[in-house]
């Protein structure tokens, strides 16, 4: 029997969580250091998986397959391809950043870090599972540690925000469950690859099989698609299903927000790529225009809303919606045409999506790390009007945060640029009008990010910030790898893309409509 690498990957954070809970209460530094070390060990294991990943074949690797509930055709099946690998990697990178951003948590740090590790375990589980039952377990379970992290360590209105987050996401999950059960009734399968491999016309056949007298098979297929779509649209999120996000990201502690924006939002996009596009491609084509409008709205509305905010966390919450909107735009554009001449464009778009996921994870998590450092030095103030002229007192802070902000803006040379470039290069030939409008997103992002830099770092020194101190040596050492990675990915994205090429080709080949 081959080495169960993926099961171990999901179990490592669980073990870490248990370890955190067993630590003695008294010491304050012990939980932090232990958590940081464990998260880096998990990152090392993930990198090991990366190195052993065979980039020359585009199929699933590290497969583990066992019978589980035979009465329901449920298997224990784990495997990864390039897409899953990117997700695992970005999760493994974001968790240490989140832990570093939560370094100064005072209340029950062991429980806090244990919940973060449990969250990581559920995310690993989601990204490796290939059977719906198994995948859904982790999808739902991820909400529980997230809820408690927001509720117990969050701001003043954390209770309402956390409840809204939970209920909203659960609504999407329940509709997704109903859809998948409908598919199972007609096909008898819960396996993603098997359902994806059934070809273009299977969903109306499913609908015909269910035998509803009230709806035509085509409409029933659309209904089933809508159920699953809602589940992912809430998670990414897509406007208008995004209202839970600003409140949740703002009220959660910055370390948790880093993880939410860095990894949890990617679960939604992963769902789009793994489940929605392969299985429901014909339905997406039927609804392509409204869906494209929704993604354009996501990109444009969120970025304008970001510009109007005064709370720094809220600005970047909306910015997060915007960056993932590009991924969705490209994702929908992938099924726009089956013209083989446009295949290179589709490859570019898909590679762009994956790179954008990795890049945004790194950038957004680092930005929230900086925000947590900012909050600590400012005693919890985090409105734009509370800052000013910090460049003079903390030049290194301003410089490094500036780098992270420019990366979010998409400055060439940093990791944001290749991703957005690939997305635009790929989607423009596929959906020119939508892409043209989305360029507004890039423009306004630049506007509000420069606005943030201007209001926080330049100008006259704010009266309350007289004792703002610069980054300590330890913080600089901790931030250095993240910043360096931004440069590396910006200048040499081939590092990541070379492992994904085969997967991208195989994925587009399989996408039949």
């Amino acid at each position: 029997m081959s080495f169960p690498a993926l099961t171990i990957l999901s179990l490592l954070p669980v073990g870490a969580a248990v370890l955190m809970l067993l630590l003695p209460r008294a010491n304050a530094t012990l939980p932090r250091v232990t958590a940081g070390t464990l998260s880096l060990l998990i990152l090392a294991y993930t990198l090991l998986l990366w190195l052993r990943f065979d980039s020359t074949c585009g199929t699933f690797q590290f497969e583990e397959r066992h019978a589980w509930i035979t009465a329901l055709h449920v298997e224990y099946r784990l495997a990864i391809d390039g897409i899953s690998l990117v997700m695992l990697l970005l999760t493994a990178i974001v968790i240490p950043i989140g832990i570093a951003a939560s370094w100064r948590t005072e209340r029950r740090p062991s429980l806090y870090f244990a919940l973060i590790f449990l969250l990581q375990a559920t995310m690993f589980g989601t990204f490796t599972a290939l059977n719906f039952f198994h995948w859904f377990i982790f999808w739902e379970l991820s909400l529980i540690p997230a809820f408690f992290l927001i509720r117990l360590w969050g701001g003043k209105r954390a209770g309402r925000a956390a409840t809204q987050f939970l209920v909203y996401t659960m609504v999407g999950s329940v509709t997704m469950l109903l859809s998948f059960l409908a598919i199972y009734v007609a096909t008898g399968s819960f396996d993603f690859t098997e359902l994806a491999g059934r070809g273009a016309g299977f969903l109306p056949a499913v609908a015909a099989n269910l035998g509803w007298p009230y709806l035509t098979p085509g409409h029933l297929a659309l209904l089933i698609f809508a159920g699953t779509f809602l589940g992912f649209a809430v998670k990414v999120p897509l406007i208008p299903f995004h209202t839970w996000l600003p409140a949740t990201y703002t009220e959660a502690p910055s370390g948790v927000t880093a993880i939410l924006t860095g990894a949890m939002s990617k679960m939604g996009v992963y769902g789009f790529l793994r489940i929605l596009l392969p299985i429901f491609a014909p339905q997406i084509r039927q609804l392509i225009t409204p869906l494209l409008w929704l993604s354009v709205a996501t990109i444009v509305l969120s970025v304008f809303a970001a510009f109007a905010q005064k709370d720094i966390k809220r600005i970047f919450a909306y910015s997060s919606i915007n960056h993932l909107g590009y991924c969705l735009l490209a994702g929908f554009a992938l099924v726009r045409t089956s013209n083989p001449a446009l295949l290179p464009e589709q490859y570019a778009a898909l590679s762009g999506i994956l790179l954008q996921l990795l890049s945004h994870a790194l950038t957004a998590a680092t930005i929230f790390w900086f925000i947590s450092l900012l909050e600590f030095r400012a005693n919890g103030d985090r409105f734009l009007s509370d800052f000013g002229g910090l460049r003079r007192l903390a030049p290194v802070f301003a410089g490094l945060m500036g780098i992270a902000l420019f990366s979010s803006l998409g400055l060439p040379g940093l990791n944001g640029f290749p991703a957005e470039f690939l997305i635009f290069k790929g989607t423009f030939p596929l959906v020119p009008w939508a892409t043209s409008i989305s360029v507004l997103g890039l423009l306004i992002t630049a506007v509000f990010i420069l606005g943030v830099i201007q209001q926080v770092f330049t100008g006259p020194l704010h009266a309350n910030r007289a004792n703002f101190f610069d980054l300590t040596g330890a913080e600089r050492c901790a931030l250095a790898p993240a910043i360096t990675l931004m440069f590396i990915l910006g200048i040499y994205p081939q590092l990541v893309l070379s492992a994904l090429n085969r997967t991208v080709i195989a994925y587009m080949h399989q996408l039949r409509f």
Partner: protein
Amino acid sequence: MTAPLSILAVCAILLGLLGTPAWPWFQSFLNGERSVIAEHVPGVATIMVTSSAIALFGIFLGWRLYGRKPISATETPDILSQLQPQTFRLLNHAYYVDLIYAATFVRLTRWSARLADIFDRFLFNGIVQGISFGVLTLAWIDSFVDNYIVNFGFDTGWRSLSIGGRVLASLQGGRVQTYLRFIGLALVALTIFLLWGAAR
């Protein structure tokens, strides 16, 4: 301020060496072919002469207006402002581009931003709050129905049943005299009925 400008100027000049149409060495280098010095490039001469002329004229004008007598103090008014006040004002306000920009694009962007924010806070959020309000109302209605209609219905049913039972219970007082009295009455009624029947 002069030092950075000088550096920029030198770099700009050097950049001009990159894409010369007469000798496209950089394009050839990128394309991987050998470059050839073109003998005759049409249409270029006019541009080269005109642009150089304008640049030289600008340098001459600068030397003429400002180079010979450098301005000693900042309060001294600019020469051009005395010679050509309108031109000076136009140049001073940077062709009013900034003002146009602020009045149009910037104002539009700020408006859009505020609109998007209001949209988000009140429209989308309003819908979500509305749904949750609707569900809670439904829940209160159901609770009311349960307590006062369903439960009440059954409780009233049982109460009337037990009243009926009490009525019946009062008939079964357990007192022998009452039973004997009823038996006696029944006996009398039976006798009358039998006698009457026999009389027929």
